[in-house]
């Protein structure tokens, strides 16, 4: 038995980098990660914390983790949104979120699969090119429907019809999820308002596959390389993404595979640039006191903190008040790392905690520039039975620039039988 554990430990160790294996021994056990961990705040088990996971993983690779603790460790490894808060506060700077993702992949290679919920989602992504299991032909239906409903100034061009220097990459969530399709429509409309010459990829738009990396699926590298090659062949100058998860995928995870990863910008960065250049004109004042939620993949993982705040402040009538935990200390809403697929109730509680934090600021609404966080925070308002409004960053801009594409109007138009 002990020999089997050693063999498995060796297999798991072979899937981690030497630096990561060293990091397992570098933990000072100070517990700072515990004090900040948003998952631990909802499920107070030591094994959830970075310290607990490091301790268990070290013993697992050494072949000395007791059988009784094994299940708990595996559960905890996946019950983590890989938000990176522990990395930020760790005095040793252990690169925890990378470690968790690599450990997940390594465990799978050693014969320990992901939890059922994640396997289902991963299978759908690999088979259908999106986590919803919908046909690729439906990917750009939102664009056609929006044009037909009169929500766009002109029909959106497909890249293969007209090769523009700028491409808008809507991502799976905004392409397929009806409650998030307004984000895609609003983005396209704002780009049109600013006179940006752009196109969308339509059926050629692939899933970024970043969820594969988050959940430790070994196919990620090959799939990412395919997409990187696709973008390289296309010779695109700028890719605008409106999903923080896709942004993290392209900008950070692809960085070693694709020199063009730096050409990928998040919508909030692009809007900031357009506003600075005076290409987006605000027409109406929208008086509102808001607080801003930093998406982990945009903020902590990619240091995009200032641009979305500048965009918010530029909207006439908007006042911004910060939550105690903001920027690098922003508390995760629980939508990342595949956590929601294994433990939706914890995601709901995490988001509810964030909503309560937002309420305490006195703000009327919480704003985020990530469609996934937006959805996660909406779960939080239900869990917390809160009347706090949740807005995507786009919503506040369109209310001032082109109110006809406000969220509810777009959702209703796209849901109508003709759409």
């Amino acid at each position: 038995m002990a020999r089997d554990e050693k063999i498995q430990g060796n297999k798991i160790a072979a899937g981690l980098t030497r630096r990561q294996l060293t990091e397992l021994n570098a933990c000072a056990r100070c517990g700072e990660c515990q004090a900040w961990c948003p998952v631990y705040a909802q499920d107070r088990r030591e094994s959830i914390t970075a310290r607990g996971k490091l301790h268990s993983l070290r013993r697992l690779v050494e072949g000395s983790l007791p059988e009784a603790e094994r299940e708990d460790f595996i559960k905890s490894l996946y019950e983590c949104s890989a938000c990176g808060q522990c990395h930020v506060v760790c005095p040793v700077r252990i690169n925890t979120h990378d470690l968790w993702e690599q450990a997940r992949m390594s465990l799978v290679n050693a014969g320990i699969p992901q939890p059922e919920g994640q396997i289902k989602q991963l299978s759908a992504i690999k088979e259908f090119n999106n986590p919803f299991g919908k046909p690729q032909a439906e990917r750009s239906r939102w664009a056609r429907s929006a044009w037909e409903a009169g929500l766009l100034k002109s029909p959106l061009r497909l890249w293969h019809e007209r090769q523009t220097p700028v491409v808008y990459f809507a991502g799976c969530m905004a392409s397929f999820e009806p409650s998030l399709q307004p984000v895609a429509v609003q983005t396209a409309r704002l780009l049109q308002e600013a006179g940006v010459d752009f196109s969308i990829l339509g059926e050629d738009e692939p899933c970024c596959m970043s969820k594969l990396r988050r959940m430790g699926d070994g196919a990620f590298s090959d799939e990412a390389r395919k997409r990187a090659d696709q973008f390289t062949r296309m010779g695109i100058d700028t890719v605008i993404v409106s999903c923080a998860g896709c942004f993290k995928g392209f900008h950070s995870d692809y960085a070693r595979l694709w020199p063009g990863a730096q050409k990928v910008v998040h919508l909030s960065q692009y809007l900031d640039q357009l506003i600075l250049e005076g290409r987006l004109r605000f027409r109406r004042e929208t008086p509102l006191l808001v607080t801003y939620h930093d998406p982990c993949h945009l903020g902590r993982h990619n240091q995009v903190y200032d641009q979305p705040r500048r965009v918010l402040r530029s909207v006439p009538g908007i006042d911004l008040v910060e939550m105690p935990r903001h920027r690098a200390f922003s508390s995760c809403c629980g939508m990342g790392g595949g956590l929601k697929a294994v433990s939706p109730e914890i995601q709901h509680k995490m988001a509810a905690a964030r909503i309560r934090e937002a309420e305490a600021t006195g703000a009327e609404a919480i704003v985020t520039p990530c469609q996934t966080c937006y959805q996660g925070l909406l779960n939080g308002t239900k869990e917390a039975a809160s009347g706090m409004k949740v807005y995507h960053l786009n919503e506040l801009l369109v209310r001032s620039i082109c109110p006809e594409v406000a969220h509810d109007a777009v959702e209703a138009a796209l849901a109508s039988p003709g759409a």
Partner: protein
Amino acid sequence: MTLSLLYMAFAFFRKWQGWSRGFSEPVSEERDFRRAVKIWLAEVLLHRQLYALSFSRWLIHILIFYGFIGLAVLPGVAFVLRSSGYLAISDTFPRFYIHPQGYVMMKVWGDSFGLMLLLGLVLAGIRRIVQREAKQSSNQMDALLLALLLSVALSGFALEGLRCSLVPAEIARYSYVARLFTPREAHALVQLQPWLTACWTVHFLLVATLLGYLPHSKLMHSLLAPVIIAVNAAEEHTREDLYWPEMKKYRATRSPRD
């Protein structure tokens, strides 16, 4: 001592073997060493991260860190100076630091480093007991390590205190902490010999235990953290996730536990 050092070397070798089972990552070709050095100095020598999160923890750690380093370095310094004296490379430093006129300097520094270590350990122990959250997350081995370090520091002072009673008062007074451990009545060397032997043996065994236990304890972070920080710092300009530009805002954010 040789045995415990050999065991420690063996344990490190085993650890190294364990780490070598992993694969090596491609090393980033872009490196900004000036920035890396700046970050490393701030993070390791000044504990910037800890200071930003919690002043009390920073104070405790800096006391233990420099106390420990000082006590580890001081015998080495004495050894080098003594050797240079024997080898007649230079006479100035050994004369000043090893012989009576400078000897007291070694004692002052030794006691100061010991006091820092002791103070840090006592504060860490108090924090562990008083602060419920920290206690909840600590395990028995962490408490054992604290006790071991405390025993090393106390037995070191006790040994030095006994030795002080054998040297002239004008020299002994420089061992300003160890003097507190000196017996009040004057004793001859013969009378103190059994106590000196016992104290030396206990101190020696505790140090040997500490060295042997180090590779298996959380003290490993004292050796590995500077390495991990150095590796991360060398890549910081490409990753930007050590929050160098975030420092001003960062300092405003204290640990929820602090």
